[in-house]
C-alpha cells in the first residue's frame, strides 16, 4: 500500500481510537518504567521470556488470553452500546464493521485458543506424570508465535486500520478490489503466524500424551482431561493446515493478483467459504473438547466419585473429533449446493449431537448419589450443563436445512453460537482455571468474590442472549450497525445490552478476585480439592522438574487409589531412589525468531519488502542458530532435588 502521509499509517479521526492510542502509550511507558525502576529486565528475560518450562509457558498463555478477553469483551460492549437504542450514532458503520470482525477473531483465535493451550500446558504433563512436554523448545516457540501473531493483529486498530470483512473474511469482500486497505493483510498474517504455533502445539501434545505417560498409565487409565487434549490436538493437526492453505490462497489473490476467490478471471468466492469452514467447523470442536475434559475432572472430583462411563466418554470424545470433519457445509446451507448436499450435512450435524448428549448423561450420572460440594469449579460446571444443553438444542434446530433458510445469519444464530461458546467454552475454561489455579500458584482464589463473578456472568449471559433468539426470529440479521424505531426491536436489544454489561461486571469481579487473592494469599497444600489424578500428588506450585521420582501408575484415578490404600493402612510401595533429572535449558531463540516473524508479517502487510525480507532472513538465521546449538540440556543434581522437596514439606 502506498503511504503518502502519517494519517495513512496511523488510524485517525475517531476519538475512541485516540483514547486507545493514549492508553497504549501510557501502559507501555508504565511497564518500561516499572521494569527499569525495580531492575527487573534481567529477571523477566531469564525467568519468563526465555523459559521452556511448560508451567511458566502455560501461565504466559493464560495472562495473554485474559488480556485478549478484555479486548474482545470491550469490542462486544461497544457493539452492544451501539445497538442499545435505535438510530444510535455511537459507532459509525465502518467502525462497527471493524469491531465485529476483531471481536470474533480475537475471541476465537486469540482468547479461546491460547487459554486452551495455557490449560494444556499447565495440566497435561502433571496429569500424565511427565517432567515436561515432548518438545519444550518447540513449546516456547509456539507460545511466542501465537503472541506475536496476536500482537500483529491487534496492532491493526491503531496502525493501518482493522480488518472489517467479518471474522472469517469472506471474499469477494476481503479481496483487494473491495478491501484495498491493509486490514485484511493484518488479518491474514496475524492468523498465519499464530497458526504455525497452534499446529506445533497440536503435534507437541499428541507426542507428549502418546509417548511420555508415566509407566503403568495405559491409554485407558489416562485422566479424561488428557484424553480430551489428545482428541482436540488430533483435530488441530488435521484442521489447521486447511486454514493455512485457504488464507495463503487469499494472500496470493490479494498480493499477486491471482484469481482463486475473485468474481472475475475464473475465481469462485464460494470455494473459499467451503474451504474455510472445513477448518472452521472442526475449530469449534477443538475449543469445546478440552472443556468437556475439564468438566469430567471437575464433576468427578466434587462428587467424590469416579467418572461415570469412562469408556463411553473416551469414545464420545474421539468420535466427535472425527465427526467434526463431516459437518462443515451446515454453515452455508443457503449457498445453493442442492438438496442432496444439504440433507447429508443436516444428518451428520444431527448425528454429532449424540455423543455430546452421551457426555451430558455421564456427568449427570457421575453426580448421582455423589457427595457434591459447590466450590467455584463445580459452580461453573453447574452453570454449563443447562446452558450448553439449550445451546446444543438450538444448534439442532439450525441443522434442519430447510428451516435454516430462515435462521441463517440472523440473531438466532448469533445467540446459538454464543450460548455454546460462552456457556460451553468460556464457562469450561473458567472452571478449569479455578480448579487448577491452586496447583499452578499454590493459593486458592477467593470463593466469595468468585460467586459474585459466577452469578453476574451466568445471569448476564441469559439476559444478553435469550433476547437475541427472539430478535433473530423477528428478523434482525447479524452485522447490522443500527436499526430504526419502526423495526420493533429496541426493547429486546436494550435488554440484551444490559446483559452484556452484567457479564462485563462479572469479568471485573474476576479481576478483583485475582488481585484480592494475591493480596490476602492463603497458601494451600498440594491437594486442596481432595483430587483424584496425579497432578494433586505433588506440591503446589509444582517444582521445576514436576516429579522427584516418576510415579508407578496402577489405577485409573491413581492418586485417589493411593490415598485410599493409605487410609486402609496398606504399606506404601518403596519409592525408587532419586536420580539426577535431565532438564531442557532455557532459550532466547523462540522469542527472537517470533519477533522476526512479526517483522516479516508487518513488512508483508504494508508491502515493505525492506522490512519483510530481513525479517524472513532473521527467521531462517534463528532456525540455523538453533540447529547448531548443542548446549540444550542440563541435569538437576540429587541434593538440589532433596532440598526442593524438603522445602515443600515432603520426605523422599
Amino acid at each position, binding site marked *: 500500500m502506498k503511504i503518502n502521509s502519517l494519517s495513512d499509517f496511523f488510524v485517525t479521526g475517531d476519538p475512541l481510537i485516540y483514547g486507545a492510542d493514549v492508553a497504549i502509550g501510557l501502559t507501555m511507558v508504565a511497564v518500561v518504567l516499572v521494569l527499569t525502576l525495580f531492575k527487573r529486565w534481567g529477571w523477566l528475560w531469564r525467568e519468563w521470556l526465555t523459559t521452556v518450562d511448560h508451567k511458566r509457558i502455560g501461565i504466559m498463555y493464560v495472562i495473554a488470553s485474559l488480556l485478549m478477553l478484555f479486548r474482545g469483551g470491550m469490542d462486544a460492549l461497544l457493539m452492544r452500546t451501539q445497538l442499545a437504542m435505535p438510530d444510535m450514532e455511537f459507532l459509525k458503520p465502518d467502525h462497527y464493521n471493524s469491531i465485529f470482525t476483531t471481536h470474533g477473531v480475537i475471541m476465537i483465535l486469540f482468547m479461546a485458543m491460547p487459554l486452551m493451550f495455557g490449560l494444556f500446558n499447565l495440566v497435561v504433563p502433571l496429569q500424565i506424570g*511427565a*517432567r*515436561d*512436554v*515432548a*518438545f*519444550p*523448545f518447540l513449546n516456547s516457540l509456539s507460545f511466542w508465535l501465537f503472541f506475536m501473531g496476536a500482537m500483529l493483529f491487534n496492532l491493526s486498530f491503531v496502525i493501518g486500520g482493522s480488518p472489517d470483512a467479518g471474522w472469517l473474511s469472506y471474499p469477494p469482500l476481503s479481496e483487494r478490489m473491495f478491501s484495498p486497505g491493509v486490514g485484511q493483510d493484518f488479518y491474514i498474517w496475524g492468523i498465519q503466524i499464530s497458526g504455525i504455533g497452534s499446529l506445533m502445539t497440536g503435534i507437541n501434545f499428541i507426542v507428549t500424551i*502418546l*509417548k*511420555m*505417560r*508415566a*509407566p503403568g498409565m495405559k491409554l485407558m487409565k489416562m485422566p479424561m482431561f488428557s484424553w480430551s487434549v489428545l482428541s482436540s490436538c*488430533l483435530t488441530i493437526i*488435521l484442521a489447521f493446515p*486447511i486454514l493455512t492453505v485457504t488464507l495463503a490462497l487469499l494472500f496470493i489473490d490479494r498480493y499477486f493478483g491471482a484469481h482463486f476467490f475473485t*468474481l472475475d478471471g475464473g*475465481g*469462485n*468466492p*464460494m*470455494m473459499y467459504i*467451503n*474451504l474455510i469452514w*472445513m477448518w472452521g467447523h472442526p475449530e469449534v470442536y477443538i475449543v469445546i473438547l478440552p472443556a468437556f475434559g475439564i468438566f469430567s475432572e471437575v464433576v468427578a472430583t466434587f462428587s467424590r466419585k469416579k467418572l461415570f462411563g469412562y469408556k463411553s466418554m473416551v469414545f464420545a470424545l474421539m468420535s466427535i473429533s472425527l465427526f467434526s*470433519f*463431516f459437518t*462443515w*457445509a451446515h454453515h452455508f446451507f443457503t*449457498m*445453493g*449446493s*442442492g438438496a442432496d*448436499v444439504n440433507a447429508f450435512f443436516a444428518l451428520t450435524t444431527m448425528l454429532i449431537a449424540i455423543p455430546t448428549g452421551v457426555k451430558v448423561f455421564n456427568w449427570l450420572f457421575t453426580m448421582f448419589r455423589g457427595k457434591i460440594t459447590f466450590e467455584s469449579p463445580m459452580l461453573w460446571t453447574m452453570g454449563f450443563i443447562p446452558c450448553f444443553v439449550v445451546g446444543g438444542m438450538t444448534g439442532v434446530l439450525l441443522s434442519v436445512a430447510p428451516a435454516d433458510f430462515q435462521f441463517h445469519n440472523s440473531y438466532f444464530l448469533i445467540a446459538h453460537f454464543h450460548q455454546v461458546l460462552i456457556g460451553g467454552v468460556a464457562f469450561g475454561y473458567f472452571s478449569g482455571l479455578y480448579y487448577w489455579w491452586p496447583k499452578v500458584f499454590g493459593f486458592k482464589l477467593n470463593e466469595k468474590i468468585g460467586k459474585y463473578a459466577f452469578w453476574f456472568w451466568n445471569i448476564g449471559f441469559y439476559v444478553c442472549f435469550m433476547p437475541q433468539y427472539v430478535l433473530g426470529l423477528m428478523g434482525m440479521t447479524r452485522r447490522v450497525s443500527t436499526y430504526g424505531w419502526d423495526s420493533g426491536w429496541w426493547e429486546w436489544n436494550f435488554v440484551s445490552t444490559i446483559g452484556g454489561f452484567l457479564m462485563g461486571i462479572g469479568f471485573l469481579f474476576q479481576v478483583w478476585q485475582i488481585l484480592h487473592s494475591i493480596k490476602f494469599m492463603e497458601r494451600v497444600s498440594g491437594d486442596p480439592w481432595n483430587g483424584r489424578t496425579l497432578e494433586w500428588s505433588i506440591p503446589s506450585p509444582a517444582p521445576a522438574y514436576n516429579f522427584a521420582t*516418576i510415579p508407578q501408575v496402577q489405577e485409573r484415578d491413581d492418586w485417589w487409589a493411593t490415598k485410599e490404600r493409605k487410609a486402609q493402612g496398606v504399606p506404601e510401595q518403596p519409592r525408587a531412589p532419586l536420580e539426577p533429572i*535431565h*532438564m*531442557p535449558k532455557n532459550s532466547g531463540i523462540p522469542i527472537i525468531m517470533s519477533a522476526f516473524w512479526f517483522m516479516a508479517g508487518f513488512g508483508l502487510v504494508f508491502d515493505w519488502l525492506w522490512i519483510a525480507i530481513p525479517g524472513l532472513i532473521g527467521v531462517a538465521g534463528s532456525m540455523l542458530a538453533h540447529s547448531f546449538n*548443542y548446549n*540444550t*540440556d542440563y541435569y538437576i543434581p540429587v541434593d538440589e532435588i532433596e532440598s526442593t522437596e524438603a522445602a515443600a514439606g515432603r520426605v523422599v
Partner: protein
Amino acid sequence: MAEQHPQSHGRDAHGGHDEHESHGSLKSYVIGFVLSLVLTAIPLIVVLNDMVTGTAANVVLLGTAVLQFVVQLFFFMHLKEEKKPRFNLLALILGLVIVMTIVAGSIWIMTYNSVG
C-alpha cells in the same frame, strides 16, 4: 515408552540412531529408486507422445501417482518396518480419510456452485 525424554534434541538424540529400527538395505533403496524412476517415466512418455488422451490419460496419471505414493511410503518412509503401536500408519490413514473428505466433499459441494 516409559522413558522420560523431556528434551528431544538433547545430547542423547545425536548418538541415538541405533535405537531405531533398521532403515532398509542398499537393495531395497535401489529397487525403490528404480521403481520411482519408472513410475515417473511412464506418464511422461505416454502423455507427452499422445499415446493416450482424455479419460485414459487421467487414469494413467492418477494410477502412476498413487503407485508412486505407495513406493515412497514403503521403500523410503519404511512404513512396513514400523514397530507397534503403529502410530505412523494410523496417522497416515486418518490423514488420507480427511484428504479424501476435503477433495470429494469440495467437488460434491461445488458441483452446483459456479459463478457466471
